[in-house]
């Protein structure tokens, strides 16, 4: 069975019907809700743990804990969403809307607000102090218990002093 001109009907219909394509960019594109467009971050929630940095397949994220910054090179990001699934604070999410073209592969940096940085610094300090105080108290208690026995007391004091020296360095990392 073979015919000719059997596409003519479709052609005629297409001639009189509206175009199926959109007049983009005059008419904006509509993305579905799940569209994986680009990553957004709620940077004040970020605890700079670096899990996203290590999980990102093209390695396009950088995190600087001291500066409180989170940097992404959107030109390298493949919008896979793996970082968002790994983030312990759930502060990353993939939202609709594609990356704009550009002349160079520039990275974008997000910085935590001054208040959050200040609050974090204070909290870290407070924790360090509290920890130091706790260690000191424990050391004194031990020393007091051992005032009778002289030989062991000296060793305990050395231990307590060592712990005190180590505490301020260790405390901020445990806090964050």
């Amino acid at each position, binding site marked *: *069975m*073979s*015919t*000719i001109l*059997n*596409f003519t009907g*479709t*052609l005629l219909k*297409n001639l009189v019907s509206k175009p*199926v394509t959109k007049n983009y960019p005059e008419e904006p594109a509509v*993305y*579905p809700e*799940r*569209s*994986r467009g680009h990553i957004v971050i709620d940077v004040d929630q970020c605890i700079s743990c670096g899990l996203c940095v290590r*999980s990102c*397949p093209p390695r396009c994220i950088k995190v600087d804990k001291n500066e409180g910054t989170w940097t992404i090179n959107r030109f390298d990001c*493949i*919008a*896979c*969403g*793996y970082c968002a*699934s790994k983030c312990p604070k759930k502060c990353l999410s*993939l939202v609709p809307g594609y990356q704009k073209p550009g002349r160079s592969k520039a990275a974008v940096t997000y910085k935590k607000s001054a208040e959050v940085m200040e609050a974090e610094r204070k909290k870290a300090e407070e924790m360090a102090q509290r920890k130091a105080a706790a260690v000191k108290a424990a050391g004194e208690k031990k020393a007091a218990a051992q005032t009778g026995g002289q030989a062991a007391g000296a060793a305990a004091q050395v231990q307590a002093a060592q712990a005190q020296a180590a505490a301020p360095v260790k405390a901020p990392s445990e806090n964050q």
Partner: protein
Amino acid sequence: MGKVSVVPFGPQHPVLPEPIHLDLVLEDEKVIEAVPSIGFVHRGLESLIVKKDYNEMVYVAERTCGICSFGHGMGYVEAVEKIMNVEIPARARYLRTIWMELSRMHSHLLWLGLLADAFGYESLFYHCWRIREQVLDMIEESTGGRVIFSVNKVGGVMKDIDAQMLGRFVEKLGDVEEQICAIRKNFLGDRTVQMRLCGVGVLTKKQAHDLGCAGPFGRASGIATDMRIRGYGAYADLDFEPIIRTDGDSYARCACRIDELLQSIDLIRQAAAKIPAGDLSVPVKGNPDGEYFMRIEQPRGEAVYYVKGSGKPYLNRLRIRTPTFANLAGLCETLKGADYADVPILVLTIDPCISCTER
């Protein structure tokens, strides 16, 4: 005997945007031999396995191909799941099957458009891609990406298609089915199309078998090779038969793929009717230790994923064999004795995906 000359074809050629190079040895207008060479877009994806852990690798495996990306991700995760003895929830198996079939539909519709373009039927080309757009919309709505789905993970899937969305898809696929039946007439019933395809590039069943042809290319020559009957995903619960033609010419390959489109719609309908409720994924602990050879049916044919791990997060080896690689030998055989003007069509009828062949 006429004069023998060698004409280069590709790697840049208007008929297909894929970088394959063929040295065509011509005698007058007849091709007497075709010597293929590939290697223009090798990306070294397999070697990334030593740098990315097995979870990250899902995203790399998916990017093997820009058309059958979902299948590559699925083949890889299923191989890893088999090594780790992970039993994924039934709902996840069904969802993977639905996405796989949607992916097959968009691939086949793309190919039909390209075929129409190759024999100079521009309006049919655009019409096929217009139908394909509806499938892409469904894919985008359910996964968030039009080409790269990124919904697979080791242990299940990450996104759900709820009953309402699935109902909408099935309804829309009804429309798509009608449109496909209409273009089926244009492709298979039109005399001009038949003159370009019938009897062109015949590959007998024996030849196809000896050369190890895969997918619709092999099925058009009468070989019942369809990995879906192995029953991975939810295919074991669905009722279908591989679509086979016996003529082995370009027309048979075209007919095979059009009928597979209708088969895919039917499979999605069946899966939508049977899909059980339940979790999308199961938690996975530990690292893969062992090896597995996963075979799945991609739109272009059988793809093979070999994965080997040794109890570390970084796997030792990933090997992907894509269907186009298997079909290149068959292609060179069909080119022997063909008219020079038929070469573009013959190259297209294997549905070449050179980039994924080179990984």
